[in-house]
């Protein structure tokens, strides 16, 4: 095909290694590493670790068998299925739709763009109970939207579908706000290069854009999921809380608290924590893997 010209006069060799010597003590322009680390650990302990440990300790008063029994009753198992299932479904919907929203906000100039951009944050700001009541009203079988569903022969409010909608509402900003800055930084030249090499728009999106934004997208997904699992206020109104059908785990915890069953409540909390932690760890590992796969981070 092509013939190479003679050797380059000098080969520029390998670039400077990206690997830094990893030591615990790092030198930089900003001093104070031991102090900063100490403070960070103390702060994290006070804010995160101590309350969580207390939860574990309280649940431990049940003993193994008591604990196991408390977290595996049919009603509790059904609530896990709903909570984690709906949170995953909502996070997945948000990953797709949130990406679309972020794309439109970043890529297009249109009247009202700033307003639309501000609208994205509303689920963050709105008291969750307000959101819950509004959603329940809209989606009940007599509500603005729910009546059409009723005509079509299915219900939204008081079903797992309603729960998923509430969690989708609450999780949207997480995806949009994590993906948006990455999309803004995305070089147009990458797309132009792909196009000049003959890639169609769809190929450019799948092979060039998506891999570039996927770490951010996964972070957004994880955040939306975590928020969905712990969500209470906006869900309980639209869920209707029918045992075995539309009862979420956080509601069961509240119910137990109202019955002064503190150990039982913390047992449920611990089991949720463990599942959430495992899932988030898995997402983080996946991110770490994709990042590693592309060599050093640039």
């Amino acid at each position, binding site marked *: *095909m092509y013939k190479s010209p003679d050797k380059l006069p000098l080969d520029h060799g390998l670039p400077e290694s990206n690997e830094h010597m990893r030591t615990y003590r790092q030198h930089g322009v900003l001093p104070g590493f031991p102090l900063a680390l100490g403070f960070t650990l103390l702060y994290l302990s006070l804010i995160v670790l101590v309350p969580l440990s207390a939860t574990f300790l309280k649940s431990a008063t049940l003993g193994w068998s008591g604990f196991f029994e408390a977290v595996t009753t049919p009603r509790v198992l059904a609530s896990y299925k709903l909570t984690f299932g709906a949170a995953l479904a909502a996070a997945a919907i948000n990953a797709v739709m949130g990406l679309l929203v972020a794309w439109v906000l970043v890529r297009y100039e249109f009247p009202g763009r700033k307003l639309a951009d501000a609208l994205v944050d509303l689920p963050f700001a709105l008291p969750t109970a307000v959101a819950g009541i509004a959603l329940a009203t809209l989606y009940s079988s007599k509500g603005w939207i729910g009546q059409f569903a009723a005509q079509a022969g299915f219900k939204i409010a008081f079903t797992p579908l309603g729960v998923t909608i509430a969690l989708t509402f609450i999780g949207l900003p997480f995806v949009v706000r994590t993906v948006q800055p990455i999309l803004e930084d995305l070089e147009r030249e*990458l797309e132009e290069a792909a*196009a000049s090499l003959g890639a169609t728009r769809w*190929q450019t999106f799948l092979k060039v854009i998506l891999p570039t934004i996927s770490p951010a997208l996964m972070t957004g997904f994880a955040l939306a999921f975590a928020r969905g699992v712990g969500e209470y206020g906006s869900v309980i109104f639209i869920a209707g809380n029918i045992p075995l059908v539309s009862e979420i785990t956080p509601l069961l915890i509240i119910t137990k608290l109202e019955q002064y069953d503190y150990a039982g409540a913390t047992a449920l909390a611990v089991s949720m924590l463990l599942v959430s932690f495992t899932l988030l760890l898995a997402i983080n590992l996946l991110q770490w893997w994709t990042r590693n796969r592309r060599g050093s981070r640039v």
Partner: protein
Amino acid sequence: MSIEIRNITKSFGSFQALKGIDLTIGSGELVALLGPSGCGKTTLLRIIAGLEAADSGQILFHGEDTTHRHVRERRVGFVFQHYALFRHMSVFENVAFGLRVRPRGQRPPEAEIRRRVQELLELVQLDWLADRHPGQLSGGQRQRIALARALAVEPKVLLLDEPFGALDAKVRKDLRRWLRRLHDGLHITSVFVTHDQEEALEVADRVVVLNAGQIEQVGSADEVYDHPATPFVCQFIGDVNLFHGRVHGGRALIGETVIELPDIAESDTEQALFFARPHEIEIGGDGAGIVAVVRDIRRRGNAVRVELERKDGRGAVEAELSREAFGRHAIKHGDEVVIQPSKIRVFQP
């Protein structure tokens, strides 16, 4: 594959980036678009590629109108200033990209893709980096990979947008000579954009000098350097001294100084611009000349640059002497000397 550019115009809002460009690039030529930043050179290149749409005018590839053809179908190889490599892919996959995105029917089999990519990596002498990621390469290596990636689709035209602009001086020099030799081997019609006149003169068969959205001159490196068509080209290509004066009776009159214009038959004018390059300024010649004071002396390798201030208060003059000539004249700071352009270019408004 020849490229014909017909009366291309382009505006960005109220800014007119290109004001009617006509240019024909012959098959297998290596042409440089040279000009200061904002002159429209990159815009023109992007219009040739199809990355930008012209407001009016036509682009013809080999006599065929491609004005409205999508960049995907133009079969151009485009090399970006900042490489635009796909960072999540290995070097190998970057080069293979153009082959892998082909429709199923035209896609070469995997073994063929491997062979072609290997060949291209050998061409740019980086086959040992196939498994690395772009983030692990130096700038010069990245740009060679970008070039290999562009060549993978066997483009009919190669377009390079300031390909060496982000590299440091030494690498830039090596790489542009290498590009020249590569082009000699490939004979692919190539256009590259640069603001570096040295680069353009050294690499290109022909140089297109652009200024403010218009072509000032098209010609070989020697032509634009020795016979600049406009004052702009004269000032932009190489260092130059500018004198104001008039032409009378076949002689240049600069202030009180009279200089014979032997080989130029210029008509008399009241206003003229005279240009002389630093090495064309002679110091200490006998007879008439411009009186000036030595302000600064700088050695640059084997040449000596002397900065002078004209006695009549009409600006500075820069002269370049060889070491020997400099030694002969024994000039020092503060001396009053007579200078005389040995060669002069005249532009009459």
